[in-house]
């Protein structure tokens, strides 16, 4: 059996712990095996929000923590030939590539090669209204809504091509999450793009690692029921993959968190629908015959994965400017808090009604029922449990008229004087909303392009500015 290839994850979403990659890279370096590190930074709306940033500043629109994430690890990864892949380019991969080049120059790594992958951005190049709709948010009138972003989930092939051309850092925008793990595996082992069994292993590796700590104790720990060591320093995951398709999930050394059958099962099923058909651009993964085995401390082996041919279509997620969301909160505490909170909730809705504000509104009683409740407050209205010591009343209102939503949210502020006795702690905000809709498009209609350059040759680096 050949030596395994290690795939590490340094981040599972935009907003993840920025110091997480350091122990992962330290472990990869210490183990001395061929390896790669990937960052998954894009949720469904992240690209749209990044696109709005790019409109404000043409050099923005990529992962805002990118420099902070890469700075402590870039030199080690370069020195030890550990390529870094990420969809941290978000809405502006060329600007992210320039940032990586400037960082490399500053760290004295002018030879570091940056692979830029573009083609996921299909805004303007594909007429969305002629595509079949895959998934949609509640109410979008796409004829009138303003398009903010449209991106295809591209697969591993252009990422692997960048690695083949010698990229040390691969900067992409929207990719499928598993592609970030499949690409280095295919590049290293030379797997064929129709070797569905091995690609299925790569997809499972990517799926299990794509959310970072979620397979090592994050979103898992439940004190007294599912305890984990040192939750303030959860180690991010590392997968060991063999040429034959063996897969073991483990994690960074000298960190908290854990890897066991429970953490792997939770993440294996995360955001999964039909377990026989987890669709990625590179392979359709089937986990129905999957088996798991604890193979040592913080080591779980995954076997029985099956792959089916890749789909002919890619998913495109389009984001539209939506309505405005206004939110406000106030607190009550102490004797009769529940009655005061209920009365406050009713008065807020009554105020919106009397003023005739064109908004859709909802009230929550945080501490009794909020996140599990429905818009009509069925749970808090029907609550008959004990009197809570404190409650927070939340109003949420949305509508297309900014001023009306603003006025609705300000009704919460007015409670500081007009509310029940002992009302305090008002907070209030107004945010624009993004609506998304997903379509399916034939993959031939999404051409990608790869360009690999050393940091010193990248336009926009410090040297060029000096020159």
């Amino acid at each position, binding site marked *: 059996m050949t030596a395994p290839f290690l795939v590490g994850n340094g981040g599972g979403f935009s907003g993840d712990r920025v110091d997480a990659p350091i122990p992962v890279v330290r472990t990869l370096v210490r183990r001395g095996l061929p390896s790669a590190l990937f960052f998954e930074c894009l949720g*469904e*709306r992240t690209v749209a929000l990044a696109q709005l940033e790019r409109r404000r500043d043409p050099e923005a629109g990529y992962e805002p923590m990118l420099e902070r994430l890469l700075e402590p690890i870039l030199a080690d990864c370069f020195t030890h030939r550990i390529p870094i892949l990420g969809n941290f380019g978000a809405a502006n991969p060329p600007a992210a590539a320039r940032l990586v080049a400037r960082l490399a120059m500053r760290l004295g790594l002018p030879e570091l090669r940056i692979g830029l992958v573009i083609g996921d951005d299909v805004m303007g190049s594909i007429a969305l209204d002629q595509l079949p709709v895959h*998934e*949609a*948010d*509640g*109410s979008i009138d796409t004829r009138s809504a303003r398009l903010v972003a449209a991106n295809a989930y591209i697969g591993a092939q252009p990422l692997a091509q960048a690695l083949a051309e010698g990229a040390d850092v691969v900067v992409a925008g929207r990719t499928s999450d598993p592609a970030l793990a499949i690409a280095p595996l295919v590049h290293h082992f030379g797997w064929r793009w129709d070797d569905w069994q091995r690609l299925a292993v790569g997809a499972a590796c990517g799926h299990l690692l794509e959310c970072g700590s979620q397979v090592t104790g994050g*979103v*898992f720990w*439940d004190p007294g*029921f*599912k305890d984990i060591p040192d939750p303030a320093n959860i180690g991010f995951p590392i997968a060991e993959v063999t040429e034959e398709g063996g897969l073991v999930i483990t994690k960074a050394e000298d960190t908290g968190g854990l890897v066991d*059958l*429970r953490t792997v*099962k*939770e*993440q*294996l*099923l*995360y*955001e*999964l*629908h*039909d*377990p026989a058909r987890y669709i990625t651009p590179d392979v359709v993964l089937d*986990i*129905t*015959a*999957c*088996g*798991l085995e604890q193979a040592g401390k913080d080591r779980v082996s995954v076997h*029985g994965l099956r792959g089916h041919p890749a789909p002919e279509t890619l998913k495109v997620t389009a984001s539209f400017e*939506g309505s405005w*969301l206004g939110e406000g909160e106030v607190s009550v505490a102490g004797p009769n808090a529940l009655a005061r909170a209920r009365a406050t909730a009713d008065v807020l809705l009554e105020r919106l009604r009397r003023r005739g504000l064109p908004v*859709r*509104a*909802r009230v*929550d009683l*945080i501490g009794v029922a*909020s*996140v*599990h*409740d*429905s*818009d009509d407050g*069925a*749970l808090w209205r029907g609550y008959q449990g004990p009197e809570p010591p404190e409650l927070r009343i*939340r109003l*949420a*209102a*949305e509508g297309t008229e900014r001023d009306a939503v603003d006025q609705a949210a300000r009704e919460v502020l007015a409670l500081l004087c007009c509310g029940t006795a002992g009302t305090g702690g008002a907070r209030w905000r107004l945010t624009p*909303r*993004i*609506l*998304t809709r*997903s379509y399916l498009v034939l993959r031939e209609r999404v051409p990608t392009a790869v360009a690999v350059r050393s940091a010193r040759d990248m336009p926009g680096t410090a040297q060029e500015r000096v020159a």
Partner: protein
Amino acid sequence: MTKMAEVPLHAVAHSRAGDKGNRLNLSLIPYDPAHWPLLAEQVTEQRVLELFRHRGATRCTRYDLPLIHAFNFVVDDVLEGGVNGSLNLDGHGKTHSFRLLSLTVRMPR
């Protein structure tokens, strides 16, 4: 005859929620693999759909994974429009795993 006692699902199983659009998935995993058949019998699609009826849920499908002793519930139209359209603080529905775990089941004492 084995005596049965009613216990919170949270005492015998764990769960994680995930979302895609207006669709929620909830894993359900017994701590003891031997409990899998008991949960299969008692945590039905209908019971889970009822848990989310007040939110407008229209359909619940349960996928069984006996080899890893787990279940995957997929609930449609429960996220009040999904993360981008909902007025709910938790538009992703991440907290719903613990709504599932608030069900009770009858287990051997």
